[in-house]
């Protein structure tokens, strides 16, 4: 079965600096892949390269289509939703409006309200605060909002950049509960950059470890969780 996302020989970076060197990986549809690595290894850059927010050279193919010449909004319209680090909350709009923005480019308008309700079911806290100005939401709520806005576009691929960043442990649990539900109910393909390695490997099917812009390790989540390098580097055992 052809992969949903194929990345081959990817160089990427910002202005004069190059962060990724010949990155290679594939994502199969319906799978969750964790992208791990130390700070500066290129995890965020990988997501940004896919979304068109950094310069890139090489191959990025989504469902057979070449992405290397696409702008961020074009990439989004092809079905890739990117939840950036820092969440990108539209802070002066309301919670409900933020979610609706996610659905603005959809053609199947009759289904939007149903999806909105499903969002509220997934994130009950957002349902309570639906009229509040988004900038007044807490960090955890804004993270939920960012994920909600991403899935309102009914994406085929969800890119998540450190969703647990800055969140208290119980909120991290909730985020991962939601991601697991998304995977179970919607069969959503995900590429997840995470520092919470335990939770990430728990959720993911496969994992990649980046080091200075290259893939250093790859395998199934269980394989990597068992590896000594991973355990000592990240799990402290």
């Amino acid at each position, binding site marked *: 079965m052809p992969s949903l996302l194929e990345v081959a020989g990817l160089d990427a*970076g910002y*202005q*004069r600096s190059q962060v990724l060197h010949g990155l290679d990986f594939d994502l199969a549809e319906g799978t969750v892949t964790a992208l791990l690595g130390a700070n500066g290894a290129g995890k965020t850059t990988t997501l*940004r390269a896919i979304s068109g927010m950094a*310069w890139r050279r090489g191959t990025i193919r989504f469902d057979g289509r070449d992405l290397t010449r696409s702008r961020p909004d074009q990439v989004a319209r092809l079905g890739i939703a990117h939840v950036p680090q820092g969440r990108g909350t539209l802070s002066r709009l309301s919670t409900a409006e933020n979610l609706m923005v996610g659905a603005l480019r959809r053609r199947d308008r009759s289904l939007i309200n149903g999806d909105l309700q499903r969002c509220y079911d997934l994130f009950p806290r957002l349902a309570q605060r639906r009229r509040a100005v988004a900038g007044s939401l807490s960090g955890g709520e804004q993270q939920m909002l960012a994920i909600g806005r991403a899935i309102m576009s009914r994406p085929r691929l969800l890119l998540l950049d450190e969703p647990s960043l800055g969140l208290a442990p119980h909120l991290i649990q909730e985020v991962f509960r939601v991601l697991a539900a998304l995977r179970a109910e919607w069969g959503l393909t995900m590429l997840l950059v995470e520092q919470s390695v335990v939770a990430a490997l728990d959720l993911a099917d496969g994992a990649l470890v980046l080091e200075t812009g290259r893939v250093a390790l790859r395998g199934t989540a269980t394989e990597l969780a068992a590896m000594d390098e991973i355990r000592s580097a990240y799990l402290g055992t």
Partner: protein
Amino acid sequence: MNHPRRRLRLAALAAGIVVLAILPLNSTAYTNYQIALVATYAVAILGLNLVSGYAGQISLGQSAFFGLGGYCAAIATARAGWPLPASFLLACVLPAAVGLLVAIPAVRLRGHGLAIFTLALPLIGVALAKRFNGLTGGTEGRVAQIARAPAWTGLDTDQWTYYVVLAIAGALFLLARNMVTGRLGRALATIRENEVVAVSMGISARRYKGLAFSLAAGYGGAAGWLYVYTIGFVSPVEMEFLLSINLLAMMIVGGMGSVLGSLLGGVLYVYVPIVAGTVDPVRTTLLYGAILLLVLFTAPGGIARALRRTGDRLGDSRAGRGPGPPGPGAAPRAEPAASPLPRT
């Protein structure tokens, strides 16, 4: 700055001074007056640079101080018979005082509020000039031929005017340069970059911004005095808003935050319409606008910065530049690529 370059600069400066010193003896009155005007406007732009270029505060009111200085010259000397140095001092100090007064609310306003506030100054200035027409000559303005070459020099009025104006302007430029490279300049630069950081470093942003305002106004006034000395006439037109805009425009084109840029601005202000062969204010306006946009598109740092960069590159003997990847492929070119705005 390495030694050979510095020596080259000083040599160029010395040569320039020599040329300027001999010039008026061999050229027409028209040329001499033109060059004096260049110096005049350069001083006005220099003042504007202090507050806009160095302190980063948008000021649209420089023409008000320019006009005020001009009226000081006309009223104090031509009407009330003050000696020239006294009226010059007045032309510097009075606008500076007004500038300080104006600065008190001004420095508390940010960006937009400040622009509005400074914008209103020329408008109010023109209205006041017209209202007090007994003093100012109203809409018709006031003739004030205050320049007179002393007999012992054997010079014509235009030549004498040239020397006086250039000497004063030169002194003002030197003064500005010293201020800018010293404590004031550094403080202003810090404030411009990040005011919060500056305050945490103990730099009173308000005090320095107020100082910059006051200085700018003083320089504007001095320029206005030089203008009347050169042209011999003042009217409300000299205070008009359009002059403020044109000065701002030429400051940017010449080079914001640069002493040399101020001089270039003055040159451009006077010579653009002449080179274009037009006295028509319509075409002049069009030209200023077109040139400004052109420069902004191609060299936003202004001509002075572009010249400096070319100079750097010519003197740069290093073979290559840093690692950096070759052409960015499909991504937008040369952007702050953290998250580039999509170009449609």
